[in-house]
């Protein structure tokens, strides 16, 4: 007997939670890829423990993967879950508070024995899965996942450890059934992944199907759930993580410009994934794992001097180490892309958690007057565009550019409308030519209308020249201690960066009204939460607008005008107030801050509440 009814839902938030050894990241990303295949819009939020392998069953060892997918536009991984899969007691404890009343709770009851309860700090007399009051709030699916998995594999010849490791496939199969989705995408994936381990492959497939069939067999739900494809714009899509998108953007830069791109990095969470991805693509770019962050950024500078494009990435503490060298790149006026995948600070802070607290460092964190453009991605997919734009600016304006992402964007994923690299905007490389020769001498600091200087690459006869960090004479680039020249150069470099405002798009109101009570102004990874919150508030009739900055230095030319259209400016940030300082200073606007420094993204509701508070207090 099979269930024929299927409930239609617009959006679903599902959370897979278990031990870090339970394979929740894999489970989540498989479900995500399948959702993507089904054409859903989506946003993900993987959340790992700080430990590499935390001991089984502990609260701090819970690993989670949250997915929001839908047939309408999805902006965030969601505040609360429609479905929670809890592989053990600790996973339930840390997640149950975010399960919506009436939501679906899938429990592996084998994860609730005395030991698991103790590790999760439940009193063993208070086993939550026997707590009728608690359970009555949800639709409950209690399944002995571990036992069923073991049963399924009793003849597999595998050891108990290996068998237990595949229980995530049971959960995944079961959830596929619940959402009326086929297992074949995952089956293909498993085939490839375990091509050299046929036994493991077979075991996983078996358990996956067992889970799926279990759903059919026990008619566990009164109906399965259907989420139709989203009405995305026309195009070819894939699901992409932010760090991957950054890596692909760098590859696109290499392909389009024909420049040798050197990506020089030193491992650090959460930026390292970019290097992991790029290391696979030596056919497009060169990667170099340096001895530290200073060597990484200076190697990148060396590559740019050699007529390549130097790119480097790090996170907070590593960026701090690079600041002296970035100052050199500013003084040299050298193309260079620096990526900061921000994480919760200060100092080592909470390396696996997200934060936006390096904006002021990006602006001001160097000795001397060292203006440089600052861009920030607003979604995993946007990371591709941002890095490409950053590279274009770096090259066309001969300047280092700082790109800000963060742990939330870097690890999270969203659908990306894949771009054909051949159709990306052209990049105009300001190579030196005969026009830059005066009286037989090459002028490395002769400026064009953008105030940008010519790029003369070693090997080019007649263009030999020396540059350095000492104050340089305009045009000739010779060392100069002339006071007025020094001031001129400081002002030219500042002006050059300011002028970039003419080359970037204006800022647009993304949601809500163009004029009204509150403008919510954001930047970076908060885009989704702000977008959803403002959309909701606007739907409720509030006179509210939303704008989001992708260009933080210089600001879009129309920003001041946009700000002037609202009574209040609300600037929510995952830091203690950074963009707000710059906005207040630049535009003399008494903006309102909203700050969260908890290593977590904003929820939509936090923003809505704040908006309502502001309107109430008026």
């Amino acid at each position, binding site marked *: 007997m099979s269930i024929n009814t299927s409930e239609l839902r617009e959006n679903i938030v599902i959370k897979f939670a278990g031990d870090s050894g339970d394979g929740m990241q894999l489970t989540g990303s498989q479900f995500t*890829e399948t959702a*993507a*295949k089904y054409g859903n819009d989506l946003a993900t939020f993987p959340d790992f423990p700080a430990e590499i392998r935390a001991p089984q069953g502990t609260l701090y060892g819970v690993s989670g993967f949250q997915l929001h997918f839908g047939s309408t536009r999805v902006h965030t991984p969601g505040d609360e879950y429609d479905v929670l899969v809890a592989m053990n007691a600790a996973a339930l404890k840390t997640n149950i508070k975010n399960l919506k009343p009436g939501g679906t709770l899938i429990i592996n009851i084998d994860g609730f024995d005395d030991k698991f309860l103790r590790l999760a700090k439940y009193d063993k007399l208070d086993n939550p899965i026997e707590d009728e009051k608690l359970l009555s709030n949800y639709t409950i699916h209690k399944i002995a996942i571990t036992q069923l998995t073991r049963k399924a594999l009793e003849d597999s010849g595998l050891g108990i450890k290996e068998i237990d490791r595949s229980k995530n496939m049971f959960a995944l199969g079961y959830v596929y059934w619940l959402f009326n989705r086929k297992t074949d*995408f995952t089956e293909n994936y498993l085939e490839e992944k375990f091509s050299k381990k046929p036994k493991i492959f077979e075991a996983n497939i078996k358990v996956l199907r067992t889970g799926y069939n279990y759903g059919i067999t026990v008619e566990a739900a009164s109906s399965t759930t259907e989420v139709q*494809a989203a009405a995305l714009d*026309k*195009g*070819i*899509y*894939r*699901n992409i993580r932010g760090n991957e998108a950054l890596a*692909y953007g760098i*590859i696109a830069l290499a*392909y389009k410009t024909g420049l*040798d791109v*050197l990506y*020089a990095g030193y491992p650090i969470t959460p930026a390292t994934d970019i290097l992991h991805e790029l290391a696979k*693509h*030596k*056919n*497009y770019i*060169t990667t*170099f794992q*340096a*001895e*530290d962050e*200073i*060597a990484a950024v*200076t*190697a990148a*500078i*060396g*590559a740019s*001097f*050699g*007529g*390549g494009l*130097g790119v480097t990435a790090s996170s907070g503490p590593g960026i701090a180490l690079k600041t*002296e*060298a970035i100052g*050199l790149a500013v003084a*040299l006026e050298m193309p260079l892309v620096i990526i900061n995948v921000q994480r919760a600070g200060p100092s080592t802070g909470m390396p696996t958690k997200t934060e936006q607290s390096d904006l002021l460092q990006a602006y001001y964190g160097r000795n001397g007057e060292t203006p440089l453009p600052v861009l920030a991605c607003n979604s995993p997919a946007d990371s591709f565009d941002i890095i490409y734009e950053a590279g274009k600016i770096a090259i066309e304006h001969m300047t280092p550019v700082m790109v800000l992402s963060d742990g939330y964007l870097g690890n999270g994923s969203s659908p990306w409308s*894949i*771009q*054909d*690299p*051949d159709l990306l905007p052209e990049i105009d490389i300001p190579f030196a030519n005969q026009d830059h020769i005066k009286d037989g*001498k090459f002028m490395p600091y002769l400026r064009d209308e953008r105030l940008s200087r010519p790029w003369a690459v*070693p*090997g*080019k*006869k007649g*263009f*030999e*020249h*020396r*540059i*350095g*960090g000492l104050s340089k004479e305009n045009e000739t680039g010779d*060392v100069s201690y002339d006071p007025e020249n020094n001031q001129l150069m400081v002002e030219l470099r500042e002006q050059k960066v300011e002028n970039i405002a003419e080359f970037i798009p204006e800022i647009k109101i993304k949601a809500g009204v163009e004029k009204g009570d509150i403008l919510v102004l954001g930047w970076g990874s908060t885009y989704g939460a702000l977008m959803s919150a403002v959309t909701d508030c606007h739907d409720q009739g509030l006179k509210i607008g939303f704008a989001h900055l992708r260009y933080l230095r210089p600001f879009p030319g129309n920003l001041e005008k946009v700000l002037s259209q609202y009574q209040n400016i609300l600037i929510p940030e995952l830091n203690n107030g950074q963009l707000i300082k710059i906005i207040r200073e630049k535009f003399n606007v008494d903006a309102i801050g909203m700050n969260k420094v908890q290593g977590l993204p904003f929820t939509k509701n936090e923003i809505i509440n704040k908006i309502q508070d502001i309107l109430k207090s008026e």
Partner: protein
Amino acid sequence: MKTRPGQSTKGVSSPSKSYASNQEIRWCPGCGDYSILKQVQSVLADENIPKEEIVFISGIGCSSRFPYYLDTFGMHSIHGRAPAIASGLRAIRKDLNIWVVTGDGDGLSIGGNHLIHLLRRNFNMNVLLFNNEIYGLTKGQYSPTSPLGTVNKTAVWGTIDLPFNPLKLALGADATFIARGLDIDPLLLRQVLKRANQHNGTSLVEIYQNCNVFNDGAFSVLTDKATKKDNTIVLEHQKPLFFGVNNDMGIILDGFSPRIVKLSEVSENDLWIHDEEDSLKATILTRFFDNPENDGFPRPLGVLYAVNRPTYEDQLRGQKKMAIEQLGQGNPYELFKGKNYWEVK
């Protein structure tokens, strides 16, 4: 020549002057750096390397002003980082002739880590370490090579930091080429520089350089006519080790211990024969002067050690080639799509 072996037939030899830039040289009058500059220019000319293919990268220090004075490509960068900058450059530019100029402070104090990592990686480039046993540019503080007990501005009571023995450290970091020259022995310096330039890999050349303002005479026993011959020994591959005013002193190896002998007392055949490829012997050579037992030993000059090991950039290019063969280099659109794309129509 370093980067293009067939090159020297390409044109007429350029006079070394043509490698001089139009910038006025601003070292102190009498500084040993002048002589080094001259020898480098002359080697570039002898080796006939096209100016536009040459890059000099330096850090910060008196010595690091070097690139300004050569009419080649050059970067005067930041303190201690020249090896890393040059590594990045070399990673994408196998075709250039790359030189790093650094000092005992720049290269061994703040930049020590980049230097040892460069040596183990073996990027092909020539590193000239101007060792004047002092910080010149900042006006006379002790450096990591200042001898114990040195008294100066920052060591009012004498230094207590055992100095680095730069070439010994380099061997510890698996350098493939180490050599030593003197600022005012032009012939030897040119020879050493040529050898360094011909070496395919990182060649570290320590050049004793007199800072006549803050550390005058640091090397005078090695350079003064009267004492030089007794206090230095010029190494030549497969030649016996002898030295002395009258070329009448030699060195033998007694087990692991080098001993000075009079040539009159032993046959030349018993002398230590220099073998550039023997790293253990090179280790002993580097210790001629910091081992108290070896007091009175002459300072080895010339090429102490030279072996071949694949360069970093060659291996990198090998991998790149392989990757291109396997994965292609065309429009990365397919890569971007991956397997799990879908279409919205």
